């Protein structure tokens, strides 16, 4: 059916000058309402992520401003179950033997301790009262769930984007070399690929993570090392197809080197696929991060991610503290849903066949 429309098209192309694929894709995307709305939501998240990295937003997430597990303000307060007051021990404390401890005389640094005691005034701090409730509740340490979610989303996006980028770089460089040169190089890289795909992702992920330890860097590297295969297959197939395309042969005929053909001629022609792949990976890695965190390979102490928050959820839910899980779920599913819908839109918008 498309062929026919193509035949009708030339008249239109003459009247309205068109520009490159990207400009055209952008126009198409604008027309797709769902995708366009998603685009702005995703952009808002990206802004949030950048604000998070720059510590503009969610910086105070570590402040313990409320009592542990302070409930959301909109919940009715429940009466706490308390023990009856302790019955006084017969005879009172007087009869208990005196406590034994190191005396200042015994203490090798007893003198300095005493001086320090006198000087401690300058370090005295006022103890702020902790809040009983917060707009969306608090976590174990009395930290604001909203702040934590904002900061966590920022970290997760950061991890997702960097992981996806690294994965794309690995997959594209190996895939382009394999697809373009073929032969022995292809055989070797294909072997490499099939080795990685023969081992289940989860196992690979867990073992890399077990070997590499913990932290954001590890997560990013581990996820990239396990997720490059999809990009490799895609890029390899595209290079295999495109290297015999006439415009690439023409480039060869005019004397373009292999590198030039690979990166100047072919690469831009799969850039839209890479963008979609990159987005897909970002979404997948954001979700992967949650699982990894759950299995104990999360971000470090001074950092928070959606995954590390979700990892706390099972223990909280059994106690009836649902707010952190709900906050993370909303933040994450909104991001992932809009991101996925945006990808759908991008795929359609950048599809050269649909021109």
């Amino acid at each position, binding site marked *: *059916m*498309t062929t026919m429309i193509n035949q009708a098209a030339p008249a239109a192309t003459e009247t309205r000058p068109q520009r490159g694929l990207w400009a055209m894709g952008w126009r198409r995307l604008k027309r797709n309402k*769902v995708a366009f709305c998603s685009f702005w939501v995703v952009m808002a998240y990206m802004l949030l992520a950048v604000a998070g990295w720059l510590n503009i937003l969610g910086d105070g997430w570590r402040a313990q401003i409320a009592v542990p597990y302070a409930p959301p303000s909109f919940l009715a307060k429940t009466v706490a179950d308390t023990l009856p007051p302790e019955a006084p021990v017969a005879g009172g404390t007087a009869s208990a033997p005196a406590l034994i401890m190191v005396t200042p005389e015994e203490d090798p640094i007893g003198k300095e301790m005493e001086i320090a005691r006198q000087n401690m005034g300058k370090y005295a701090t006022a103890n702020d009262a902790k809040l009983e409730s917060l707009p969306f509740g608090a976590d174990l340490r009395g930290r604001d769930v909203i702040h934590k979610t904002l900061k966590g989303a920022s970290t997760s996006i950061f991890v997702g984007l960097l992981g996806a980028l690294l994965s794309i770089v690995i997959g594209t460089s190996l895939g382009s070399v394999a697809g373009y040169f073929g032969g022995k190089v292809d055989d070797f890289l294909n*072997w*490499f690929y*099939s*080795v*990685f*795909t*023969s*081992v*289940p992702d*989860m*196992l690979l992920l*867990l*073992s*890399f993570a*077990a*070997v590499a330890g913990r932290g954001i860097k590890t997560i990013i590297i581990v996820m990239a090392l396990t997720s490059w295969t999809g990009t490799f297959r895609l890029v390899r197939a595209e290079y295999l197809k495109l290297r015999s395309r006439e415009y690439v042969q023409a480039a060869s005929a005019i004397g373009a080197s292999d590198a030039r053909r690979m990166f100047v001629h072919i690469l831009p022609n799969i850039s839209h696929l890479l963008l979609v792949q990159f987005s897909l990976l970002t979404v997948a890695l954001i*979700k992967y991060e*949650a*699982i990894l965190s*759950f*299995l104990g390979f999360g971000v470090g102490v001074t950092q928070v991610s959606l995954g590390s928050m*979700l*990892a706390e*959820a*099972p223990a909280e*839910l*059994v106690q009836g503290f649902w707010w952190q*899980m709900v906050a993370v*779920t909303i933040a*994450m*599913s*909104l*991001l*992932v*849903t809009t991101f*996925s*819908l945006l990808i*759908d839109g991008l795929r359609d918008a950048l599809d050269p066949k649909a021109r």
Partner: protein
Amino acid sequence: MLSYIIRRVLQMIPTLFGVMLLVFCLFSVFGGDPSLVLAGKHMTPATLANVRAQLGLDQPLTTQFMIFVKQVFTLDFGTSWGSQQPVRDVLASRVGPSLTLSGALLVVDLLLAVPLAALVAYFRGGLTDRIVTICCTLAMSISALVYIVAGQYLLAYKWGLFPVGGWGHGFWTNLLIYVPLPMLMGLMVSLGPDIRFYRSFFVEEMNHDYVRTARAKGLSEQKVMLKHVLRNALIPVVTTVMMSLPYLLIGALVLESFFQIPGMGNEVVRAMNNSDFPIIKAITVYVALATMVFNLLADLIYKLIDPRVQLK
């Protein structure tokens, strides 16, 4: 045909070798020393040395690798470093539950996803299509953890619709009593992406010229869909499913640990946490082998259901 199979089988050898090298590097070279854990809390250097000797960790790496190679070829991976049970027995007892759960999940998922995907593709571009697509996207955006944690809490505990978890003895007991809830949770996770994925197969097929021919013959839309499109769209579906079969072997990690299912996934997590390398090595090699075999089978079945395919 036979020569094709032989060649493919021979091609598996380098891949298998690569897998072995990867696994070996990950665990034996970089993976830390499990003997520290196994030697107990009163470990002295002498005890440690003795444990290492018992595990064969005092051998040079090349010797250890040769032992590994021998293990792979005899498919005898010795005993688990954790429970000291023969790896073969451990895995054999774990495969059943995993397959019961993942198999049921796969079957139900297919039975739901394929017709739904066809239906959505039939209405492609319309409101139904859009709503279902967005619902699927929304469903797949929620982390599996949330489904499991919340599903177990609400469906099993609060409303008592299912047992909270566990595993029984008979196949049917398990399938009818213990499998449904984890399977439901699995479906929540897998159905969304699968419908979207299969839908793309259908939509792709519907753009082909033969569909126009079928319409020009006077076939009704339903018939075009059910006969001409379905048959073609099922080809990639079948291939995809075939390729995913080996993964049934390792089961569903999180599902199994939340629902106390004594499956492979549970064992993988345990083995990982306890550096039980013989188990991990065995699972990896078995799954890699299964992946390769099922890839070959997928190609053979592909040949069977798609007359265009020629095996070269």
